């Protein structure tokens, strides 16, 4: 035969490789010879043992007599042996290093023992000036060997190339059966008479959608070389591309009462979720088409399932179903629209949405797909009844409910089935709420520069619940807030609103309107600054005379009698105001009754507001820090000057 293949057969390697040197040389451990093996085996036999048994008493005596002699059991020579080994290793290493430095491509001497020891290998330390005629012969030798190698390589590559070309030519021949085989790896095919039919539906995965999912495989007899001999024919309704578009639209509160929906002129889309199953990988022509058809089948099943649920599910807020639209008001001013879109399929077409204005979140899409798949899975995997006389179609939990036993609330919870539309509405509500919270937090952070807002978003969310940690701090004075402030909170974003849990355990219920959240945060920010100031004040030795949420009265550190120079901080109208007590020089007529100088406080002082925003400093606390330290100096000076 011509296509003989020559096989090189090699004996099994008998030697173990001890090490592979850097130059690729393998050091082998020679297998043991018979005599060696025998010697090793005999070593294991302890001949001394029997002798020992006989002379036990004597040995004991010996041991008693010379306890120091018993020590040699520890093998005193071991250390020596070890260090010798180490020294030898060092030498070998040195040798190896030198060998590498030499560019010694030849293996070590034993490989070429014919070399005379006296003759120096010329390759070592070649200096350009002294490359004498002696080396030319080896150069020539080398050149010739290189040429020979090159030739043989060329020959080999030619053979390989030819083979590859032949293979390529073979593959170009379109083969219907090969294509069919390929198709069968992806879809279920069967023969019906002369036809070959394929199945696109999800019935095997647990779906019970009645729509036709069959396609026909046709052999294109007179096709050209480039084209595929396999063609498919899809039923008419599957030739469309279908996808779900989920939109959140701003609307009036009374929107659902309007009769004519077509008159709605202006719709402001808040966010959109297109439910499209798409992958980046482009496959062969017909496979792409089939995949698209299958996806449209899935989408249509999803939508019809939603429609069916809408028709039998009666929530408080009505859900409307008109044509290919399902709409409901999820919040007073926001509407959820689920729409089924169709478009004839063309290969290589992109999905037609404008991505510029819309923001795509994948959570809802994924949630929808997941819901339907779960639905499929539930209808597919019904456990076998156990014991065999039990009712069919009960889950394990339902079976053990009687004997466990489960109580009423638990059984009610178990029996309750939540329709998909309900789940998706909940998820949409949550997503919208989350979007609003995010936007509001962003805008707060943008507008309010001073105290920093730190937001810790969780990695793991769930479709109906997210908890966000919000922490406030004043730049540069974090420790003050940590010690004295109680101003972090946890935002639990749910379905119908969020709750803010504060550090002291208080719970603030916030509705769907984020303005409430804004107010809470703004209040927190103001009181945070004041609390932070209170923390700072203690550090710089001022005294806090009184403090409540958002109010402070401070006294200077000097232990003077006069208590002028007190500072009062208050929050009024969502702003912080600072007042300083001041001694007026032109004293008002003093009282006749209170003559003690300490009562002068009551009459002599007047409060003046400080325009603290004009002070130097990075933020409120910084400014106050500066002001207080200046004040402190002024007061002490005053005290020392007029005792």
């Amino acid at each position, binding site marked *: 035969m011509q296509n003989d293949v020559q096989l090189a057969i090699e004996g099994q390697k008998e030697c173990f490789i001890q090490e592979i040197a850097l130059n690729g040389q393998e050091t082998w451990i020679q297998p043991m010879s018979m005599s060696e093996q025998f010697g090793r085996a005999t070593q294991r036999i302890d001949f001394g043992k029997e002798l020992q048994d006989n002379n036990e008493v004597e040995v004991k005596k010996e041991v008693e007599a010379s306890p120091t002699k018993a020590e040699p059991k520890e093998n005193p020579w071991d250390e020596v042996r070890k260090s010798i080994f180490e020294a030898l290793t060092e030498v070998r290493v040195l040798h190896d290093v030198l060998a590498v430095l030499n560019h010694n491509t030849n293996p070590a001497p034993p490989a070429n023992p014919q070399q005379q020891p006296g003759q120096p290998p010329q390759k070592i330390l070649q200096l350009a000036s002294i490359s004498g005629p002696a080396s030319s012969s080896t150069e020539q030798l080398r050149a010739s060997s290189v040429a020979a190698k090159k030739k043989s390589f060329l020959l080999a590559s030619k053979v390989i190339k030819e083979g590859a070309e032949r293979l390529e030519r073979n593959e170009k021949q379109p083969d219907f059966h090969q294509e069919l085989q390929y198709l069968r790896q992806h879809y279920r095919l069967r023969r019906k008479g002369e036809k070959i039919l394929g199945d696109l539906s999800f019935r095997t995965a647990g779906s019970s959608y009645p729509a036709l999912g069959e396609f026909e495989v046709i052999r294109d007899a007179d096709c050209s070389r480039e084209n595929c001999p396999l063609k498919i024919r899809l039923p008419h309704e599957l030739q469309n591309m279908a996808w779900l578009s989920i939109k959140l639209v701003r609307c009036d509160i009374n929107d659902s009462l309007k009769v004519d929906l077509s008159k709605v002129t202006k719709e402001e889309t808040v966010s959109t979720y297109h439910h499209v199953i798409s992958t980046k990988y482009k496959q062969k022509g017909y496979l792409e088409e089939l995949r698209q058809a299958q996806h449209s089948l899935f989408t249509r099943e999803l939508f019809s399932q939603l429609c069916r649920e809408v028709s039998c599910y009666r929530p408080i807020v009505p859900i409307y179903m008109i044509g290919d639209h399902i709409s409901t008001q999820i919040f007073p001013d926001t509407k959820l629209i689920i729409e089924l879109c169709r478009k004839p399929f063309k290969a290589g077409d992109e999905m037609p949405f404008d991505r510029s204005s819309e923001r795509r979140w994948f959570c809802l899409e994924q949630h929808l797909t997941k819901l339907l798949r779960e639905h499929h899975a539930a209808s597919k995997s019904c456990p076998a009844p156990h014991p065999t006389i039990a009712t069919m179609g009960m889950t394990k939990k339902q079976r053990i409910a009687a004997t466990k*036993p*489960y109580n*009423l609330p638990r059984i009610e919870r178990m029996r309750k089935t939540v329709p998909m539309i309900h789940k998706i509405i909940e998820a949409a509500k949550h997503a919208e709420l989350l979007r609003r919270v995010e936007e509001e937090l962003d805008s707060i952070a943008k507008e309010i520069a001073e105290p920093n807002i730190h937001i810790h978003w969780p990695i793991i969310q769930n479709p109906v619940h997210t908890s966000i940690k919000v922490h406030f701090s004043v730049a540069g004075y974090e420790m003050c807030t940590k010690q004295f402030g109680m101003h972090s909170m946890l935002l639990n974003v749910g379905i119908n609103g969020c709750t803010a849990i504060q550090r002291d355990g208080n719970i603030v219920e916030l509705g769907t309107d984020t303005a409430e959240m804004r107010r809470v945060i703004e209040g927190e920010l103001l009181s945070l600054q004041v609390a932070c100031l209170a923390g700072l004040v203690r550090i710089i030795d001022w005294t806090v005379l009184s403090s409540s949420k958002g109010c402070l009265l401070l006294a200077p550190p000097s232990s003077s009698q006069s208590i002028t120079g007190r500072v009062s901080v208050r929050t009024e109208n969502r702003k912080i105001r600072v007042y300083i007590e001041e001694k007026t020089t032109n004293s008002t007529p003093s009282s006749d009754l209170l003559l003690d100088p300490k009562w002068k406080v009551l009459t002599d002082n007047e409060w003046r507001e400080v325009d603290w925003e004009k002070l130097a400093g990075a933020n409120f606390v910084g400014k106050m820090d500066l002001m207080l330290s200046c004040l402190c100096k002024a007061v002490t000076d005053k005290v020392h000057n007029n005792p």
Partner: protein
Amino acid sequence: MGVTVVFQWELVDGQTHQQAIQELHGRINNTGAVQEGKFYYESKFYQASDSATTRDFYTLKTSEYPVTVFARVDDSTKDKNSCIQCDSPMESLLVKLREFFTPKRTFEIRGTRFKLADFWIRPGIVTSSGSNKCVTIEIEYTPSYFADDCWPLFSELGSYILNRQIDDKPPTLMENNKQFNPGMMVQQYVEIFSRKATTQANFQQPMKQEQIQAYNTQM
């Protein structure tokens, strides 16, 4: 399903069962509890035809464990908890076994269910064959399963509702770190039924047809 304790209300002289229930409702409302639906307990006493080898037992059906039928042997030892939790086919099985076990008496408790945080309070009148026997108050505390742990809560709430001092130890049935199971609740009811049965054993009357009808429509 949490620790459940059944108390018996002692009638004051001249007080009818209805008046007692009224008073109880008032007291329970005062604690801040709210009404939440109705409840019922239905129990049947089966007598064994061959009392030498088989024993009498009670079955209990309740709205609180809707898919379960409890069966409890009428045993004199109180602390032994021998309660069987059965599936609903149990009843049809008992009909087939009527040669060996004959239904003798029926007991019924009906009333309104109250909820206070995690407490369920179920005051009701025990009726046997159409006549009122006594008034019971069942208190269930759902989060806890160990009566030893949560007994202080029971004694505080119970003594307010019952207007008397409650023992400072849980019933011996649930003592010693035993985890609660519904059998303990059945046990307590069976104790009350059997107590009544011994004192008023001669008071047997078949259940009236209208009552059965009324019960059926209620369901």
